[in-house]
Structures are given as structure tokens and as C-alpha cells.
């Protein structure tokens, strides 16, 4: 099933912390296996060479201004396959917290006196809001094994298995004590699984970095959180950490 020619791949970053590329750089011995199935032509974090001759573009970070938009469109033109990696690129990520805040204040806080020099958008967007995206690797940061699975899938031209069910599935398979039973509250019940519930496995909660599933029951979950004693504002904060862009899109639908 292995194709004859290795696709050329390149990595690009937009508004983000580059933590997802760091995960890839940290694949260690597996990176050699990866190089057996793809040829990396551009990857700023690990190599100095750069080429614009690539088949697959990996996009990290969210799209936050017109300059970003134009650059992403150019990459889309160049690439046969475009893959968004990490929450910023797949769902707007942490950057989209600002989407629900007063933009004047956001600008003041971020740029201070220099704010007039920056033409940032009022709202951060994921890659798919600007161009067609072929594959997504969710998470903040991404899961290395899922990244490898998506790369394998695109090399073979098939759809990867990306779950569309809540994190609760994996959390229960891992026999975790539910955060709600520890008097903590999480958004795992509306968040896309695929992370092997890694945060809850370590004793914390799910913050929702993989974004909401396609058909979440967020109304029920907001109600439940309020029943558990969270204020309306606390509930919103839970949902806006990662879901701000998704929520707005769902509202418009």
C-alpha cells in the first residue's frame, strides 16, 4: 500500500506559539520513520533550508490579519494538500478568546501605545475560515501519534480516523474518576476525543483544546455546569477558552 514517491512537505506558522511544530520536532526516533514516507523541504524549527516546491503544507497558528490571509492563500495555491495542525489553526484556539472580548481593550492590552502600527482583525480565525483545509490535527498541543496517523492517511490518500464523539469515551475507557465526581468541572462532554483523555488521565480536567464535536449538546452542558453551582460567567469562561470561534459559527448556522 506504500506509494512509490514520497510527498514533499513544508511547515508554516501563523499566530501561535509553534508548540505543535515542537511536538513534531520531538518525535525523536519516530521522525526517521516519518522521513521514510515524506520528504521535508521546509521546517523552520529544525532546518535552515527552505523550498517553495512542496506537495503538502502544514499550517500552524490562527489567521489574525490580512497579511496572514494573503500568505495562507498563496500557500494553498502552492500545495496539493493543506493540513491544519493545532487548535489555533483548526478552531481558532486560544487566540479566539479575544473574539468575545472588547476589541479596544484587547488592542490596548496587547500592543499598548503601538496599537496603531498593527492592523489585527477583531476576530482570530482558523485556517478553514480562509481557505479549504484537507486534513486537521486537533489539540493544544497536537498529539504526536495522531499527527503520524494523519500523515500516513494523507500519504495513502484515505480519510484518517478522527473521532466525532466526546472525550468522555476515552476518559471512561481509561477508567478515570470523572472530574465532576472530584468536584471539578470540565468541557470533556462536548469536546472531540482523540487525545486519549490525556489531561484527565493526569488528574486535571478537559479544557476543550480539540474543539467541540460536530453536534455537541452544549445547551445541556451549560445547564449542568450551572446546576453544579458555576455562575453564568464561569460557564462562559469554560466555553470561551477554546470554543469562541466554533460557538459563533454554530450560532450563525
Amino acid at each position, binding site marked *: *500500500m506504500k506509494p512509490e514517491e514520497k510527498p514533499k512537505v513544508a511547515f508554516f506558522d501563523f499566530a501561535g506559539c509553534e508548540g505543535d511544530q515542537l511536538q513534531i520536532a520531538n518525535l525523536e526516533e519516530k521522525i526517521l520513520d516519518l522521513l521514510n514516507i515524506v520528504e521535508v523541504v521546509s521546517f523552520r524549527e529544525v532546518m535552515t533550508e527552505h523550498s517553495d516546491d512542496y506537495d503538502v503544507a502544514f499550517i500552524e497558528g490562527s489567521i489574525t490579519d490580512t497579511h496572514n490571509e494573503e500568505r495562507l492563500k498563496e500557500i494553498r495555491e502552492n500545495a496539493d494538500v493543506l493540513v491544519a495542525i493545532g487548535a489555533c489553526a483548526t478552531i481558532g484556539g486560544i487566540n479566539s478568546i479575544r473574539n468575545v472580548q472588547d476589541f479596544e481593550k484587547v488592542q490596548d492590552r496587547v500592543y499598548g501605545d503601538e496599537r496603531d502600527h498593527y492592523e489585527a482583525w477583531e476576530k482570530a480565525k482558523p485556517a478553514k475560515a480562509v481557505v479549504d483545509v484537507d486534513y486537521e490535527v486537533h489539540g493544544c498541543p497536537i498529539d504526536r501519534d495522531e499527527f503520524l496517523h494523519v500523515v500516513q492517511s494523507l500519504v*495513502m*490518500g*484515505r*480519510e484518517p480516523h478522527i473521532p466525532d464523539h466526546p472525550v468522555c469515551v476515552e476518559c471512561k475507557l481509561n477508567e478515570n474518576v470523572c472530574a465532576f465526581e472530584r468536584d471539578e468541572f470540565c468541557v470533556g462532554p462536548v469536546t472531540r476525543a482523540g487525545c486519549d483523555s490525556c489531561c484527565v488521565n493526569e488528574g486535571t480536567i478537559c479544557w476543550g483544546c480539540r474543539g467541540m464535536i460536530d453536534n455537541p449538546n452544549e445547551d445541556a452542558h451549560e445547564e449542568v455546569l450551572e446546576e453544579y453551582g458555576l455562575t453564568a460567567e464561569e460557564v462562559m469562561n469554560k466555553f470561551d477558552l477554546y470554543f469562541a470561534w466554533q460557538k459563533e459559527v454554530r450560532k450563525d448556522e
Partner: protein
Amino acid sequence: MNKEKSPYLPENATILNVEKMAEREKLFEIELDSGEPLNHEPGQFVEVSVPGVGEAPISISSSPTKEGNSFELCIRKVGNVTNVIHTLEEGDQIGIRGPYGEGFPVEELKGHDVIFIAGGLGIAPLRSLINYTLDRREEFEDIKILYGCRKPCELLYEDEVEEWRGMDNIDYRETVDECPDDVCWEGNVGVITTLIPGIDIDLENSYTVVCGPPIMYRFVLQELKQKEVPDERIYLSLERRMKCGVGKCGHCQINGKDGEFYVCQDGPVFNYDIVNDFEEAL
């Protein structure tokens, strides 16, 4: 583990021939590497395996009366497994488990009229029985085949259909939902149900066998009701999600007030009288 023991281990098989039939469908002729015949009944299915991609349940499209040990599968590209199968060529290997399920009640049909109603890809499982009745023509009374698809270019088994058109010992009728202006089509234009009022059904002595997409059943069954065809004289073949094919994984269960079926074991062929009370069946 002992190889013979696992119901989940496929047998190796080799593709002998691939024929493109329409934009999304190809016909694969396959033989088990053991050289043994598949030993299936018309209407049964197999789980086709592409290691590294997965398995998909596919109905067997050839009749067991076909010469030689090979069998045929008509496969539409609709998902990961079938997309990859479409890239395979003569000589490539795949895995096969099965045959599984309850097929058409061939013995019950013998000595009766048989009316086939096929919509789109529904012709694939029906063809296993159509060819069986044609190969043993003397064992059946009148045979009528009503075949409909969306457009003329989606017609499957073109060569065989051409033969059916010319056969004088069967009544073959066809229709397309729509026909583009630049395509030559001499048959009927209209959905499959428009063919039903025009046929004579000997209610006492005939069986109707239906297969098509979920939406088609409702309308075809309504027409048959108009004609007063008794429910127990109608057989249909249903599609469901299946993972194991052997009644374990739970995916293909169909429920109703009066009970439940596993499509992989109790079907895929069902008597309409038995499933018509099943809200989830149709």
C-alpha cells in the same frame, strides 16, 4: 492462536478481473487463494478486507450457478475501504470473510413468478438471484425485471442488461429518473415506481424481490400495496453498518416494537411481512 479458530481472520483472495461499470462502480471478479468455491447463496454478503484500511460488507453479485470458482462483487466508491479497493488491479490480493447472512429463499421461489425491482446499486445483490433464475430458467415461472437508476450513464451490467432486453423468456423493463438531452435513451423516464402500474402481477403465484436505496423502499412498497401484493410475498435486502458480520459487534441491529434483527445474521434479505412493523427497518 489457531488460524482456523478466529471468526475475524479473513482468507486471502486474488482479484482476477476488474471492470469499470459506471463512474462510481466497478465489478471485481475474485477467487479465494485456497482455490475453493465461496459456496454462497444468492443474496449473501462477504466482508472485504484491505489490510491497513479496514473491512467493508459487500453483497455478492454473482450467482452460485456461475461457472468456475470465482465470484463477483460490484463495489461503489463511498468510503475509505471502497475507495482503496477501486485502486486495486488484476492480481492484487484482498481478504475475504464469509459468505454471511441469510440470502434469498431460492427454494421457496421455485415454481413461482418472480418480479425483481432494483434501484441503482440495488441491482448488485439482486443480480445474484436474477442470474440464478436465468441459469435455471425452467425451475421458475414468469420472470420480470424492473430496473431503475438516476441517469443512463449509471446503468450497471450494461452487457447483461443488453442481453436481458433481447430475451423473450423474461419481461425486462427499465427507467431512468432523468435523461440529459444529449444522451440517447429509448427506455422509460421516471422513477422506478412508474414501472409498477404497467405490470401484471399474478397475486396467487408470484414473489416480488426488491433492493435499492433506503428512500426507494417506501415508494415501491406503497405501489405494491396498491397492486394488493401480499406482504409475505415480498422480499427485500437491507443495508446497515456492520463491523463483524457475525452477530457480535452490535452495529447492524434493527429494532421495532415487536423485536429486533441483526442484519448480518437474520438478513440482509428479509420477508416484508416480518420487517414491516419494524420502525427502524424501512
